[in-house]
């Protein structure tokens, strides 16, 4: 086998390994943030980027890296919507498609919406993708220290917002919202989860 063929095979093997690692969690990531109709196309977009930039994919942080690419693909998808939709989004000050609503917890949805977009994503990656700060940092191009600080502040802000809502409506912070999903995950999000590496 000549050298170029060996290199090609090694590259294909590497892509297969990344594909196997990210394909399923990537679908869940996108389903949490996009319309169902867009998920398959966006998964393909992300994997095309992985194939094109395979040499840039960090060996031990492939999934967070892919989440970062997916986040940009989602934003790009929003830009390519119809002119009318873009105009509406511009007027509304939005930059991404409306993600699926939080399950049965509108108060929490309002509290999260009060965070900056980057802090919203940090919270989601931590709570839903189960990423540790180091992985979130890789996904968002931040330092782990900055993520830890932002996450701490975001949680404090959420707690304060929910506390205000709870006092106003008689709903206690942390009270199980109606219509919530069954048991929460038991995995420690700071040490592992769907996207832990």
């Amino acid at each position, binding site marked *: 086998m000549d050298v170029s063929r060996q290199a090609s095979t090694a590259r294909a093997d590497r892509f297969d390994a990344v594909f196997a690692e990210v394909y399923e969690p990537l679908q869940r990531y996108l389903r949490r943030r996009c319309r169902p109709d867009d998920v398959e196309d966006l998964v393909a977009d992300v994997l095309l980027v992985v194939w094109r930039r395979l040499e840039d994919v960090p060996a031990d942080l492939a999934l967070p890296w892919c989440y970062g690419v997916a986040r940009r693909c989602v934003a790009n998808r929003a830009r390519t919507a119809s002119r009318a939709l873009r105009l509406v989004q511009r007027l509304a000050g939005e930059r991404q498609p409306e993600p699926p609503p939080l399950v049965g917890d509108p108060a929490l949805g309002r509290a999260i919406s009060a965070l900056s977009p980057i*802090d919203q994503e940090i919270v989601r990656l931590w709570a839903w993708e189960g990423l540790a700060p180091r992985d979130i940092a890789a996904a968002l191009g931040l330092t782990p220290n900055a993520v830890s600080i932002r996450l701490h502040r975001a949680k404090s802000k959420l707690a304060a917002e929910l506390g205000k809502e709870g006092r106003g409506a008689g709903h206690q912070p942390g009270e199980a919202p109606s219509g919530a999903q069954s048991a929460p995950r038991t995995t420690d999000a700071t040490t592992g989860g769907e996207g832990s590496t």
Partner: protein
Amino acid sequence: MSDELENRLRRANPVATDATVHPADGPGAAILRRTVMSTDDEMLTGSRSGAEPPLWRRPVVLGVAGAAAAAAVVITVVAVTSDDAVVPTAATTVTYDLGGSGTVMGSCVPFADLEPIAGAAALAGTVVSIDGDIDGDLVVLEVDRWYASGDADRVALRGTPETVSLDGVEFVVGEEYLVTAADGVVQPCGMSGPASPELEQAYDQWYG
């Protein structure tokens, strides 16, 4: 509260961690894998969403200085459309980097203790476009006023995927920002940000 909040966030997850998705070893995945691997760079450039045209409105987090980069002055042809007519006009554009990492949040000096940077460029400008793809972002401001070291009509601020956020300062088309750049890199930590009476007063004092 932290555990309660964590549990509440997880209960609100719209797609459970173990939700069924297309399996990585399924036939659909195999087709996708083959399709992707048979796609060359030229095709990628024309098809991937990351190569789509510019966005109109997209907040971009203001970067923290750190990466060495030089400002580049270029001549840009600006197309002005009116009744479908294109009238090219020349405008000078200077490009600054939004920078990479290097400054950790919390290490900035208090605003009251900030001092002007000798030789730095300083300007007030309104964001006219925000472009970006998976490789980075480009924010273009039309200069409203040069405070120091510049006379270009427009300033382009280039970010990278590694851009570090600075307390959530974001660019929005149509809004005005005050920007200080030294050695071609935008200066963070209160030196640059959305226009405000406080920052304008500081710029007047520093560069007036």
